[in-house]
């Protein structure tokens, strides 16, 4: 069976959920082989988890140069690996960096690339969701191998134990791979909450929340549900919540099991980032708010009453 390369995304020694989803997808296409691209020592702590989800091999392309330069060295390492192992497909997370690696790889290999893929069939047919979640597109790479970026939360990861061997990959970088130098990485406080794009529950607040302080009622409900906190653009533009948490066309795309929109009207650009959520719940005082058109359950009322009461009720039932 041909190998399917899965580019690993990790953070602080932990494999990101999208990687487990891609390994699950890869198993339906061939033999999953995980590819770790990073500083020396990145791969070792990830191997067990990658094995749990079926990686039969872990390619470790590790060097300080990969870590110190933006994107380009990763694409070079990956291109060398693709040429060496001729995989059946290459799966990369549909994240900012994932898409960027994919773009470079496409040029290097003169290979088509498809982004934001939610399904990939064994014959290479990809399913993409376009235009704010309103359109489903079936597409295919016609030149080269299926090179796709997979949207986080498009499928449920399922374990299938394998015991991967670790294979070091020597990387020969070109001078043009080392033009952009990363001099600093800053993690901005995100606390203990799950990553927005990975969370199975997201509670988002909009302009209706009315102030930064008042976002505490959103955070309180989120914490009771083990959820991530999101925000509409009106809320981030007004400085109620940091921009990194914006959901929508110009923010993050989320696809959780449950999305709770609080004080959000449901503009088309907001929907673009949350429309594919499994279940949608809305709280809004305006019964005509468009968000109710897509909500499975809606409460028409003042969020300042409804949300704290809901939090209180969850506490009571524990």
């Amino acid at each position, binding site marked *: 069976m041909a190998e399917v390369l899965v580019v690993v995304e990790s953070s602080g020694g932990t494999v990101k959920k999208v990687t487990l989803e891609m390994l699950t997808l890869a198993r339906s296409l061939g033999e999953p082989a995980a590819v770790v691209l990073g500083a020396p020592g990145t791969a070792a702590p990830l191997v067990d988890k990658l094995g749990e989800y079926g990686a039969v091999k872990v390619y470790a392309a590790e060097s300080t140069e990969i870590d110190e330069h933006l994107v380009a060295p990763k694409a070079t390492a990956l291109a060398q690996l693709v040429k060496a192992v001729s995989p059946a497909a290459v799966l990369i997370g549909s994240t900012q960096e994932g898409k960027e690696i994919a773009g470079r790889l496409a040029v290097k290999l003169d290979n088509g690339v498809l*982004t934001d893929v939610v399904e990939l069939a064994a014959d290479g047919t990809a399913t993409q969701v376009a235009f704010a979640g309103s359109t489903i597109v079936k597409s295919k790479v016609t030149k080269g191998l299926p090179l796709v970026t997979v949207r986080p939360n498009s499928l449920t990861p399922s374990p299938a134990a394998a015991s991967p061997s670790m294979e070091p990959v020597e990387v020969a970088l070109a001078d043009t791979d080392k033009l952009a130098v990363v001099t*600093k990485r800053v993690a901005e406080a995100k606390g203990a909450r799950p990553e927005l794009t990975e969370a199975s529950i997201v509670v988002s607040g909009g302009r209706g929340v009315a102030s930064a302080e008042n976002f505490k009622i959103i955070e309180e409900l989120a914490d009771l549900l083990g959820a991530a906190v999101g925000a509409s653009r009106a809320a981030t533009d007004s400085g109620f919540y940091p921009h990194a948490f914006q959901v929508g066309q110009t923010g993050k795309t989320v696809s959780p099991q449950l999305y709770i929109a609080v004080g959000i009207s449901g503009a088309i650009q907001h929907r673009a980032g949350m429309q594919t959520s499994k279940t949608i719940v809305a709280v809004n005082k305006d019964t005509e708010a468009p968000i109710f058109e897509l909500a499975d359950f809606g409460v028409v*009322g003042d969020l300042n009453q409804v949300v704290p009461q809901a939090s209180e009720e969850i506490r009571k039932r524990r």
Partner: protein
Amino acid sequence: MKIVVLVKQVPDSGAERNLRADDNTVDRASANNVINEMDEYAIEEALRLQEAHGGEVTVLTMGPERAAESIRKALSMGPDGAVHVIDDALAGTDALGTSKVLAAAISELAPDLVISGAESTDARGQVMPHMLAERLGFAALTGARKLTVEGSQLTVERQTEEGYEVVTAATPAIVSVWDTINEPRYPSFKGIMAAKKKPVATKSLADLGVAADQVGWAGAATTVLSHSKRPARSAGQKVADSGEGGVALVDYLSSEKFV
């Protein structure tokens, strides 16, 4: 400093957008076509650099006839001129092909700096800046929320999932920007009038030395097989809060096993 700004015309994301039934391409005829939102931030950033350091700002667009309207609109914000790549053979071009054409056009302009949007609202690819950097051998500083220029040295704050990274490079480089970087200006009346007289050079594939079979339908490396509208979500249950709305909400969450 010589700056090229990449501007793509896209169908307005605030209205319904469709793919065409016949060839699966974006239906531009029925859409309200506008400048890709992130590209307005790219234009603004270029103009601010020009104000601080001098030089020249050129808009570059690849797109059909109607993209000319967006070019004029871009010019009304202040750039000096534009290049419009237009050719019938470009119909059906995918991202890989677009990067070939834009790279050829950029080479000809030989800028110090290319500024683009971080992503387009129709494709949402986020692939173009790195594709171009790969082809041109430029440094790529992408996803910027802040850009500082000192001589030929560029420093960018790049937005990441976790926070941000500081990334530096020397020109020639391509920088892509998010909407957090600045607040784009509105064109003034004077700007709109002046834009009418600014030079817009049209270039064909032959002018750029790109073979027609490398782009368009012939050269595409991907194909759309079919498309359909996602069934619209239907409204579910809606309750009016009369004092127990929060409890009703938790009842629902509990019936769906979320609590």
